[in-house]
């Protein structure tokens, strides 16, 4: 499964501050939706929606214990985050290179 986790899905999933908070809460151990909602400034339906995005991105998984649904971090999430981080720094350095290129081209135009 880990190879199938898309860096783009992870990028989108972690682009939201509430979802980042959910991931961090789950870092302390599996939680039901209700416990997550109690600890966050958003309602339970919103938390459920965020959990669905995180699950689809491969960051979170859920297990049913009797009638209780517990959410936890998926081991594949680590690889996904590594991919995301690599992409982040690629974008940042790409933006820097673009800036330098723009300046250098402007200088060349000024002094042909």
């Amino acid at each position: 499964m880990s190879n199938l986790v898309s860096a783009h899905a992870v990028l989108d999933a972690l682009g939201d501050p509430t979802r980042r908070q959910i991931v961090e809460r789950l870092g302390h151990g599996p939680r039901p939706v209700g416990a997550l909602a109690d600890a966050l400034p958003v309602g339970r339906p919103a938390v459920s929606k965020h959990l669905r995005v995180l699950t689809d991105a491969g960051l979170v998984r859920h297990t049913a214990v009797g009638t209780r649904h517990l959410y936890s971090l998926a081991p594949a999430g680590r690889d996904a985050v590594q991919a995301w981080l690599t992409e982040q720094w690629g974008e940042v350095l790409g933006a820097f290179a673009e800036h330098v290129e723009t300046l250098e081209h402007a200088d060349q135009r000024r002094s042909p």
Partner: protein
Amino acid sequence: MNIEPVVRQVVVPCPPARAHRLFVDDIGTWWPLGEHGVFGAGGTVTVTEGRIVETGPDGRTAVWGTLTDVAEPGLLAFTWHPGAPPEAATHVRVTFADDGAGGTRVELVHTGWPAHRDPRAAREAYDRGWPGVLAALAAAA
């Protein structure tokens, strides 16, 4: 259990001294704040008194990190904790090397995620931001 160092490179068309200077002095111009900032687009980021500081559109500020090693033209190293307190910092090291063709090879290495952590301390330290997310996922793997 650990997150591997992240290494990225880019070549820019100017000498290392200029690349180093533009990286620091122009950071507010080139950094993609909309995609990679704490407060989103519309603010600015500066390197001031040895710290990298983002100012949001509403005037709020966030310290991303503190410079730990600056050697012009070759090196820029800093702690990294955007959106999180300094205790959650990881480490970024950027080197600027002459590529032999009039340009500079810029290499960025991001390291320092905890392999293990104390959950109670983590709860205090990792409230928001990427380091916390990374630590949580590293611990889950």
